[in-house]
């Protein structure tokens, strides 16, 4: 993180399932400081949790010595959250769950994280940078009252 960025807060977590809750609390507190409504804070918490779990599980392969880096950047009307891991990023785009297929055993019951992230925030992208690590980038906007 650029030490000169006076609007960024950074959180660094070992890749241990459960620690995503710390990221949820940190993000929630930043969003509250910025004046986000409680329902948007909930959206953000779930999106941040899912992004951290994916970074730990898929990006860092649950190697606890690998860090998940969460960078919260406060802008005028929006909060951007980048969740970085040391992996190569998701191989495919976002897949919407097909509940009928799941209910007939034709699709894994899992595989909803990226879909939830994309559905809950105003902007979501996944940037794969195999050499420097990859990240999920989420944005929620203050003027958006949610769906």
């Amino acid at each position: 993180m650029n030490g000169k960025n006076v609007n960024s807060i950074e959180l660094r977590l070992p890749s241990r399932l459960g620690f995503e809750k710390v990221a949820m609390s940190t993000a929630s507190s930043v969003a509250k400081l910025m004046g986000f409504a409680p329902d948007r804070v909930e959206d953000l918490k779930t999106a941040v949790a899912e992004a951290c779990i994916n970074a730990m599980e898929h990006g860092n392969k649950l190697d606890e010595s690998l860090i998940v880096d969460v960078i919260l950047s406060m802008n005028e009307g929006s909060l951007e959250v980048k969740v970085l891991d040391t992996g190569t990023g998701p191989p495919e785009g976002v897949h919407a769950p097909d509940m009928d297929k799941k209910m007939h055993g034709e699709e894994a019951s899992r595989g909803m994280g990226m879909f939830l992230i994309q559905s809950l925030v105003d902007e979501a992208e996944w940037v794969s940078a195999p050499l420097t690590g990859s990240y999920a980038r989420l944005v929620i906007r203050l003027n958006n009252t949610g769906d």
Partner: protein
Amino acid sequence: MADSGTKVKMEQVKCASGDPITVLRFAGDITSSSEPAVLGTYGGLSPETSKRILLDFSKVEYLNSSGIALIIQLLYAASQKGQTVQTFGLTPHFQKVFTMVGITKYTKLYPDEAAACAGFE
């Protein structure tokens, strides 16, 4: 490290019509490590005596997509065995999340236990 974990309590109640209902009351977290609590507890129910199942989320503190996947597996198993499952106690946020992923096609979400019970009739 204290693990808040998943707690689950099984209870038999009766709805207004007198039909027996099996309630699974979850508490704590529902995550990837909740398989024993969610599917294990469900698996211990007899399909003959537990025709109507109620999932109570009102004490759940944290629920993620891996936890929701376990609920989907429970719903899948229940549909195979001809059991009906109703749900209550989800926060508005998680009602939205359940609706987003499409679970509501396979379990109805009710605001409280009484409404959920009445939903079986």
